[in-house]
């Protein structure tokens, strides 16, 4: 698998969440995603970016365009140095929220992705990686 392009963006404010949506859209279009696939990865990005800002205290997003033979994909890696997630299985449950949200952010983003992984260490931060293939 090849990484064709990569860029890193800061995630501090809700304006950054909007910028992330636009940047992910651009990469998904560039990778030849259909409109539905674009919408799915942009929506997933919006959910996780908001978590990074609201719960992780801000962080960064790495956007990569991948090629695996004839397949193209987009991989997003969100990293923060926030409080971490003590119970990832619980956080991935539909309807579970530690804040005031609907509790669909993580579980919904996972459903919208082809690949999804979370690593988190309480007190050290969280990394969420998701990818969608064309």
């Amino acid at each position, binding site marked *: 698998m090849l990484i064709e392009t990569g860029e890193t963006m800061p995630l501090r404010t*809700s*304006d950054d*969440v*909007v910028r992330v*949506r*636009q940047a992910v*859209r651009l990469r998904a279009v560039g990778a030849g995603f259909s*409109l*539905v696939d*674009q*919408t*799915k990865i*942009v*929506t997933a990005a*919006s*959910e996780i970016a*908001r978590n990074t800002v609201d719960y992780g205290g801000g962080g960064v997003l790495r956007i990569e365009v991948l090629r695996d033979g004839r397949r193209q994909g987009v991989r997003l890696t969100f990293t923060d140095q926030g409080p971490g997630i003590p119970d990832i299985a619980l956080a991935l449950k*539909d309807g579970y929220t530690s804040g005031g*949200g*609907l509790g*669909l*952010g993580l*579980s*919904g*983003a996972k*459903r*919208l992705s082809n690949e999804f992984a979370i690593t988190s260490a309480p007190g050290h931060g969280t990394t969420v990686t998701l990818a969608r293939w064309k």
Partner: protein
Amino acid sequence: MSEIPILKIGDCLLVSIQVDMHDRLAMALQDDLTQRIVADRARGVMIDISALEIVDSFIGRMLNNIAAMSRVLDAVTVVVGMRPAVAITLVELGLALTGVRTALNVDKGLAMIRSIIDNAERADAHRDR
């Protein structure tokens, strides 16, 4: 004040969301609309989301909240113009928008609001007789 204009047409309020909404803007719109429903004695609220490229759980929650608050204030909310790709994504995200009425476009949305208000008024008149 939010940056999203709220238009009054008869006893209805019309909002057309034309910008990529950040979360504070969504919250401001929710507050503004609630106040305008009371101030303008509106019976209907139509929210046009045809320009929105995504609806995530935050915007979905805003739409749910507006519908719930307008119901409490005796107004009916209809969301119109959702793009097909947005609808497909919303369902997969797990957001059914169960409390929100939807219509295909502005014309159908206005007709829906009209018929709901008229039905409610007929029921009131029947009760008062």
